[in-house]
């Protein structure tokens, strides 16, 4: 029994489907079999109802299952590989948490690393897997929960194996190069070790076969994310103060859309809408460029500041 609710729910549902299939197969002569199977069906239904009635999970948990060369059936896993893979996953979680809270510097210590600590609390069968859980005291909790960070980390890794290139690019747009580097290390290890992977966290359940590992490792190697600040001249078309989004007409570059930096308050944005729309301004923007093999495949803009130009 694992404490990862999704695995438990999937297990009971699969069992119920098997029992219902058997009941459908019964004829009039199978009276005794019907008694037994219906009793089992009712028990499983009650189990599902009990799982659904549980309050929403607040603690972080994820299961990582490994297969391929480092694994000998359900018997064992190479210790060096397992330690390294789990460590790299933990690194990704720490960086996502830092990214979502205090921000992640270009280099140096990752903030809140201690708060991101997950413990291995169980081994799970099905290839060979580890259950990782948050066991820290509640007072250490941060505004962004470790659960969110773990779920986001698994969603990010999921995007690397995704067949749809556009979905991958849009997921990478939200991260920085340092986080990308940890994902590169993780998938590099998987590829180099000939391992396959299954990741379960929240409602996400993603299997990476050999092809998906190859695709993810290739993407992680060939992708780079870079941030640059630029000042662009043009006219503000308007901002959405609550959702922090802007539209800016930048002459020959056309219309630029993006998010507004959260450091600018809703009040400031309302002032922009009153005073700066269609006025000649310089916008200071952070431009995040996603490159694949050197070519820019995506650009995302964040508005940092808006300055009126003095009439020339």
């Amino acid at each position: 029994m694992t404490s990862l609710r999704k695995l438990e729910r999937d297990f009971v549902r699969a069992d119920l489907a098997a029992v219902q299939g058997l009941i459908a197969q019964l004829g009039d002569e199978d009276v005794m079999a019907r008694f037994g199977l219906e009793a089992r069906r009712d028990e499983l239904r009650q189990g599902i109802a009990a799982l659904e009635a549980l309050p929403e999970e607040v603690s972080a948990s994820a299961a990582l299952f490994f297969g391929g060369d480092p694994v000998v059936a359900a018997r064992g896993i190479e210790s060096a590989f397992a330690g390294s893979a789990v460590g790299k996953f933990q690194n990704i979680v720490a960086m996502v948490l830092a990214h979502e809270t205090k921000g992640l510097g270009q280099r140096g210590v990752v903030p809140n690393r201690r708060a991101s600590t997950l413990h291995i609390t169980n081994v799970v069968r099905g290839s060979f897997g580890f259950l990782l859980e948050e066991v820290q005291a509640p007072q250490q909790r941060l505004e962004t929960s470790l659960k969110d960070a773990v779920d986001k980390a698994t969603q990010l890794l999921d995007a690397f194996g995704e067949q749809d290139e556009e979905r991958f690019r849009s997921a990478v747009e939200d991260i920085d190069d340092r986080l990308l580097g940890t994902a590169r290390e993780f998938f590099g290890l998987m590829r180099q070790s000939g391992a396959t992977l299954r990741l379960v966290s929240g409602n996400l359940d993603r299997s990476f076969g050999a092809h998906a590992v190859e695709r993810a490792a290739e993407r992680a190697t060939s992708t780079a994310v870079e941030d640059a600040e630029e000042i662009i001249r043009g006219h503000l078309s308007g901002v959405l103060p609550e959702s922090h989004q802007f539209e800016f007409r930048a002459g020959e570059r056309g219309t630029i859309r993006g998010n507004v930096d959260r450091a600018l308050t809703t009040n400031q944005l309302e002032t922009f809408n009153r005073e700066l729309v269609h006025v000649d301004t310089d916008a200071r923007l952070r431009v995040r460029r996603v490159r694949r093999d050197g070519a820019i495949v995506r650009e995302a803009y964040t508005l940092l500041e808006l300055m009126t130009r003095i009439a020339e």
Partner: protein
Amino acid sequence: MRANLNLFLRTPVKAAYKVDFFSMDLEGSREVLISMTRYWFGLFSHRRSDGIWKGMLQVRLEDVADDAAAIAALGPDPGEIGTGVTP
């Protein structure tokens, strides 16, 4: 069977005898018998958490003295009462 329904239902059997009880028809459909064997074997053969064999115990029930005692306890077959005269 109707008169002794509690002997065939899981909940009353568990309450009375402290065993998990699922019945099967040895003379029902063969295909169902195979499917049921597959299902119960899958459920009871190994411990889910670590794959360790749980094992199953087989108890033979064809004890003539026990059968006679059971028939005596059940009394006459209700279906046969009043049908003993042939024209």
